[in-house]
């Protein structure tokens, strides 16, 4: 029984991701990009969920890991011959090295984890509002440094000449990897301990759980996934510091909140649902044909709609579309994860 429930909790989100990827193979080349983007969003939101959902601590800083992962994978993937033209101030080691697609993603994940460890060591002592503000400060610092430090990347200019290897297959596989990691974590001893600290910090501490250590483990794992997702992102589109900053933070947090912060199922549903709405509106901003006429929304409609959706969900259904619960087999059970 318990094993079936756990399997459903894994297979539900995975099936949804696979379905989205398969649907992406059926559509035109230009629409395909939206599906790939949605799958990369799944990876980012699952990374966010792994920390925020399990610990109950807010983080505005995860896009810094995404950005750093994108920088890492991007700088390492540009062919050596093209580096001096795009990034003339690059440090020696980075200038002379180039790696393939998969290694660049792995290194991005490792760098994301290392950065999360360095930041988490001091920051994981904070919770509530203080954690929100401190992680926001992390986002500001990372954005500022990446923007101006041209020794480690392109600075303000847009990343070009990164091989565009993130297709449907890579994005789909990566999203599944992220889901499996998050699932394995939340069913492990560490995941259970962290959720215990979320639900009742005092009781958890009383039985000897170190809140700080459990949060740090989740933060590092989540940083690794976010860095990995950043690597996928830079292999998908030409990014710059502005595209990995406030807007992405907002939209990924909105996805998590709309889907339901406390469940993996919610993270995946939220990421795919909001990506779907967002892609449709992005198309509509360029004019889209629907039965009965042409829809043509002005630029900016997307964020208005997503922002309104997020505010509505927070007000009317604070636990998100899925109610923050994992996918069950359809008969009422006691919540057990």
């Amino acid at each position: 029984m318990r094993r079936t429930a756990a399997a459903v909790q894994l297979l539900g989100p995975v099936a949804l991701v696979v379905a989205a990827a398969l649907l992406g193979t059926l559509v035109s080349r230009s629409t395909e990009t939206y599906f790939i983007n949605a799958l990369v969003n799944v990876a980012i939101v699952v990374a966010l969920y792994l920390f925020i959902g399990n610990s109950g601590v807010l983080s505005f800083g995860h896009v810094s890991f995404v950005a750093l992962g994108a920088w890492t994978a991007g700088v390492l993937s540009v062919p050596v011959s093209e580096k001096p033209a795009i990034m003339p101030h690059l440090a020696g080691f980075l200038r002379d090295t180039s790696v393939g697609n998969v290694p660049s993603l792995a290194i991005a994940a490792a760098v994301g984890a290392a950065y999360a460890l360095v930041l988490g060591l001091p920051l994981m002592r904070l919770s509530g509002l203080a954690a929100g503000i401190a992680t926001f400060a992390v986002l500001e610092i990372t954005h500022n440094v990446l923007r101006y430090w041209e020794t480690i990347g392109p600075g303000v200019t847009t990343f070009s000449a990164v091989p565009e290897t993130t297709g449907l297959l890579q994005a789909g596989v990566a999203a599944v990897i992220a889901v499996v990691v998050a699932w394995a974590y939340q069913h492990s001893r560490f995941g259970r301990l962290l959720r215990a600290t979320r639900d009742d910090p005092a009781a958890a501490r009383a039985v000897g759980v170190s809140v700080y250590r459990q949060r740090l483990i989740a933060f590092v794992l989540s940083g690794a996934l976010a860095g990995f997702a950043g690597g996928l992102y830079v292999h998908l589109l030409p990014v710059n510091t502005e595209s990995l900053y406030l807007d992405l933070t907002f939209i990924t947090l909105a996805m998590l909140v709309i889907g339901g912060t406390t469940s993996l199922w919610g993270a995946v549903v939220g990421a795919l649902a909001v990506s779907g709405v967002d892609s449709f509106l992005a198309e509509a901003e360029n004019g889209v044909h629907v039965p009965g006429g042409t829809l043509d929304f002005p630029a900016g409609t997307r964020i208005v709609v997503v922002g309104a959706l997020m505010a509505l969900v927070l007000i009317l259904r604070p636990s998100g579309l899925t109610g923050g619960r994992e996918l069950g087999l359809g008969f009422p059970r006691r919540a057990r994860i």
Partner: protein
Amino acid sequence: MIAAVLGIDWRTLADAFALGSIYALMAIGIGLVFGVLRLVNFAYGQLVMAGAFALALASQWGWPVWAGILLCFAVVIVLSLLMDRIVFRPLREQSPAVMLVATFAVAFLLQSIALLWFGSLGKIATSLSFLQRPVTISGVDIRKITIVAMVVAACCLVALVLLLNKTNVGLHMRAAAMDFQTARLLGVRANRVIASAVLISGLLAAIVAVMLTVQTPLVTPDFALRDTIVVLAGVVVGGMNRLVSATLGGFAIGFASGLLGGALPTNQSQYLPSFVFAAVIVVLLIRPGGLFSRPGQAAVDRV
């Protein structure tokens, strides 16, 4: 004397002081609402932005200056009361973190509505540009707005101190900020005290909107966004728990960024935000209650 040592001219010093004054007003606006609602209003800058657009539109329509300022006040106050009624009130029972996410959403919502409405290029507010002209005081050219900002901020502070200490509304607000539940038990009306805090905070946003549009006449949808982020940092560094420490924090961060931004060459000042936010993190870790708070008054719980 300090100015001479650091090689800063009087003009930069005065401008930094003015920026500090404006940020202090924003800090009060954020701190007042935090006091009664325990809500960090990320969307405060968008109130300022709305007021700035009102000014820009008024000057585009050729309205007289006073009418433009009136429109700005009306827009900002209506918007802030609406924000309280539609978003903050249903969320009052939620945790501070949820409310922070909600105001984050509202900020983006308002910003993109402005983008839809006015486009990304923005509009120019020209009606108050005469305040940009300098006056000469004992050989130093100082822009009129610098003096106006300092005077206005000082007047607001005096008015606010009088309001908080000499009136019933002020007493209720201070009581609610100290302990909301007990204040309610003693007969303070929750909705009224929150509405008055939101109202004053809106008034301050309108004043800030007028002064910021003089300094930066080009009004874009992300107007005042950076300022809000910096002020929020300043408020946290100063200490959210008391209005005085929040105000001091806002002033300090405005003064410091104005001074350093004006004095440092570009290749050094570009990392200024990093240092400011690193300071925020350090303060949060070492003195969670803020730099200017009384010892033993932690605003945030530590685990």
